[in-house]
């Protein structure tokens, strides 16, 4: 089993039948860092949440296949799902402060999943936690255990979360906008940490971000989402050197580079991400695309070129 | 779908509250026009008639042969007068005090609020009982006692609401172009506070009725031979073993009234909060 996550044609609707995510497919291989890129509202967090069964109650999802660690999620019970996710996936959310219980000390939250799944004693669990806290960069892991979450800074909490996610030696870590709430100096540290984890322990990482520069630097494969659909995906290097979709191309232009001239404007993509009509047959990017054609309202061609490079566009190259 | 169930529940409880209160109000109004019998008229030969026995007395008669239905009807007058009246008085004074203390924040305001805190520290029945000792029993005493009990709640509510909205821009603007404080109070503060005040009012009536009936039950409220539902229950107590029906009507009357006002109060609370979050 090479793939940790396999999603085929995932569609997510809300209770008013609006389509939020449409026909998303992606595969994350073992030991791979997969970057999921898109603006806010593009559906990337929702896609990730459907892997770990955290979709809000008012949303319904439908997929040809959601397979996690080789298990088809449809075929197992809720309890088995929880166990599977708990044992094999670690989640690092965007705003850690809300995800750690404010009234419980770190030592009493960080290890409970480990104790439950691995059937270890509290002492063993805390020993392991201390080791992991050391690995994520804390000088005094034991003292961190005695703190409450609000006594730590954002960066420290992020690292606690990473340690917590590593407790069960997961096969996959989902990191949702791991750097958005952090200072730029800490951002670097945190994502380097991800890289180390991936290289040393072989853990796959689903890196979700709107920060293209970040994703470019650290991912092996990426998928670009726009308005609930994947418009382009493939090997990162390939896509960055040869973006095919107009949206991806526009995104590339936005990355501020050190080569920018002093007064050169950051280019913008005019328009807004549309909320409705995401299930239509035509191209979802049409009303913002600088190269839109009439046919783009009716259908959109899918291309699969070499190096697993996939994109949706009517433009012939 | 769950939302629909929820709104249905909330609306239906408000409607039930309105129905209950309307019934009680109707009975009260009706009492001024027609009562089957003279409520205080004793008829020893007709004592202890059960409701099922006799079609002449719909709810039966009590230990003195008085018609229970008529007594319930006339009792509704006292209950509503005392209940609503005391809340009106208490609210009026409380709002005035609250506004005053918001206006003169430092010395006077603090002092007033401290006194309000003091008043609120007394458990309800205890305060009422203490006041009744001073002002006397009967309807008048009850109204005074319960009004005083209600003052701090309204005073604190108004005080905090006014202090909250006072720093809002439009109030400052109004002050700057010379409106007097009284004008600002009536034109701006009162409308803003009205939803919460009305909600509080309704719940307060529920409490007031509960306290009044408790006082009457203890013998500190309405005095015999007048009728109050609490008094009727206390009178029924001696004979309750043999004649349990005596307690049914007054008990249900009290429950209906208190429940009705409480449901309306809660319903208003939901309605007005919902409206505010939409706006």
């Amino acid at each position, binding site marked *: 089993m090479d793939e940790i996550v396999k999603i085929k044609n995932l569609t997510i609707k809300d209770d008013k039948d609006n389509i939020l995510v449409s026909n998303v497919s992606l595969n994350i291989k073992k030991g791979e860092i997969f970057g999921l890129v898109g603006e806010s509202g593009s559906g990337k967090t929702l896609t990730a949440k459907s892997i770990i069964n955290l979709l809000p109650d008012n949303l319904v999802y439908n997929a040809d296949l959601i397979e996690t660690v080789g298990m088809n999620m449809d075929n197992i019970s809720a309890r088995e799902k929880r166990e599977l996710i708990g044992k094999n996936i670690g989640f690092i959310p965007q705003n850690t402060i809300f995800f750690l219980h404010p009234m*419980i000390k770190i030592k009493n939250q960080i290890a*409970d999943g480990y104790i439950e799944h691995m059937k270890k004693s509290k002492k063993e669990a805390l020993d392991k936690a201390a080791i992991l806290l050391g690995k994520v960069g804390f000088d005094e892991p034991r003292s961190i255990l005695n703190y409450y979450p609000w006594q730590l800074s954002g*960066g420290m909490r992020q690292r606690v979360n990473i340690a917590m996610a590593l407790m069960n030696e997961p096969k996959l870590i989902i990191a949702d906008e791991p750097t958005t709430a952090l200072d730029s100096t800490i951002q670097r540290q945190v994502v380097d940490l991800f890289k180390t984890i991936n290289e040393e322990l072989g853990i796959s990482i689903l890196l979700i971000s709107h920060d293209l520069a970040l994703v470019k630097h650290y991912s092996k494969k990426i998928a670009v989402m726009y308005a609930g659909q994947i418009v382009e995906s493939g090997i990162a290097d390939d896509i960055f050197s040869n973006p095919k979709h107009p949206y991806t191309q526009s995104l590339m232009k936005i990355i501020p580079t050190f080569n920018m001239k002093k007064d050169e404007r950051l280019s913008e993509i005019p328009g807004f991400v549309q909320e409705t009509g995401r299930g239509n047959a035509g191209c979802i990017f049409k009303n913002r695309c600088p190269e839109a054609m009439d046919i783009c309202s009716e259908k959109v061609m899918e291309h699969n070129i070499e190096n697993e490079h996939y994109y949706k566009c009517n433009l012939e190259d | 779908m769950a939302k629909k169930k929820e709104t249905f529940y909330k609306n239906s409880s408000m409607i039930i509250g309105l129905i209950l209160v309307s019934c009680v109000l109707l009975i009260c109004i009706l009492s001024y026009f027609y009562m089957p019998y003279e409520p205080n008229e004793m008829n020893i030969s007709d004592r202890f008639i059960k409701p099922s026995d006799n079609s002449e007395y719909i709810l039966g008669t009590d230990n003195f042969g008085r018609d229970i239905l008529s007594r319930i009807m006339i009792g509704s007058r006292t209950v509503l007068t005392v209940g609503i009246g005391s809340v009106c008085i208490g609210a009026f004074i409380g709002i005035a005090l609250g506004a005053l203390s918001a206006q003169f924040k430092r010395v006077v305001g603090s002092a007033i609020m401290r006194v309000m805190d003091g008043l609120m520290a*007394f458990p309800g*029945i205890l305060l009422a009982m*203490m006041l009744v000792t001073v002002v006397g029993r009967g309807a008048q005493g009850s109204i005074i006692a319960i009004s005083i009990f209600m003052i701090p709640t309204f005073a604190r509510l108004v005080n905090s609401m006014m202090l909250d909205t006072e720093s809002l821009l439009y109030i400052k603007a109004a002050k700057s172009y010379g409106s007097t404080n009284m004008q600002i109070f009536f034109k701006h503060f009162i409308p803003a506070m009205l939803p919460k005040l009305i909600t509080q009012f309704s719940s307060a009536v529920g409490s007031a009725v509960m306290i009044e009936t408790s006082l009457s039950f203890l013998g500190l409220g309405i005095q015999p031979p007048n009728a109050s539902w609490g008094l009727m229950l206390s009178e029924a107590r001696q004979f309750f073993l043999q004649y349990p029906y005596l307690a049914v009507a007054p008990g249900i009357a009290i429950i209906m009234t208190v429940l009705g006002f409480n449901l309306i109060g809660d319903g208003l609370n939901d309605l007005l909060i919902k409206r505010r979050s939409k706006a």
Partner: protein
Amino acid sequence: MLNYILSRFKSSIVVLFVVSIITFAVLMIIPGDPAQLILGTEATPDVVQELHSAMGLDKPLYEQYGNWLINLLKFDMGTSYLYGESVTTLILNCLPITLSVALYSMIIATIIAFIFGIISAIKKDSVIDYFSRSIMQLGTAIPSFWIGMVFVVFFGLKLKWFPISGYVPASESFLGFIKSITMPSVVLAIGEFGLLLRIIRSSMQESISQDYMDMAKVKGLSMGKIYLKYALRGAMVAPLTIIGMQFAKLVGGTTVVETVFALPGLGRLVLTAVEHRDIVLLQGLVMFITSSVILITFIVDILIMFMNPRIKTFERGE
């Protein structure tokens, strides 16, 4: 932290002070001469005047208040007209009964409220949720004296499960003690559980909607554990405050129940004092009960403070 305790202490003292003034003032307004009341109508004016002076009633009001206050601090609340005994003794005799009933009813109310409140919150909009909310409304609307009477007849006389009146001290027979306070406590609990249930329900709902619940789910913990460890802990602050408040108020609110069930507690004593216009007794009782309310509220606030590691404002980055 110390600042908080000090400030709460300061305001409690101020409130106590105000309460003492109100208590003293209100009962001093009563028309009629206490000395006259004690001696009755047949006493000659001279004798009345003598007692009047002996009781210090011709001193200026503020001096009377001062003396009363000082005596209070020495736990001397004077002598009751009616009973001729020290008010303090009377209160201490009646206190255990009222405390037992208040405590027992608080326990019952808390258990009911927690069970239904938590289930209501977890299974929102289910049948049990609507059921809980309905009985909650009903409970607060039912007069305690009415349901008390019903209980006396039904459980006491018909089913003979409990004694219909009277108090059995725990020293005599523990089972008898429990039996004698069960009905009154249940009756009180019916009136109390409503508010608590509502608070627990809304508190739990809010806790359940927090993000830490998601994290617990991803870690794969069982739902039961998640609700008990994470949801409940986040929901405890408001309910505990209410429990404290309600218990405090109960101590002063047992009059009706004690009357219906003939329990010789503080509530009944207050009623007697009011009926006989025993000012000294009444002043002492009101002061004692209200001070207890303020004390209990203060203690509860401090306990809550320890329970709730204060949440600092969230920082962004470092």
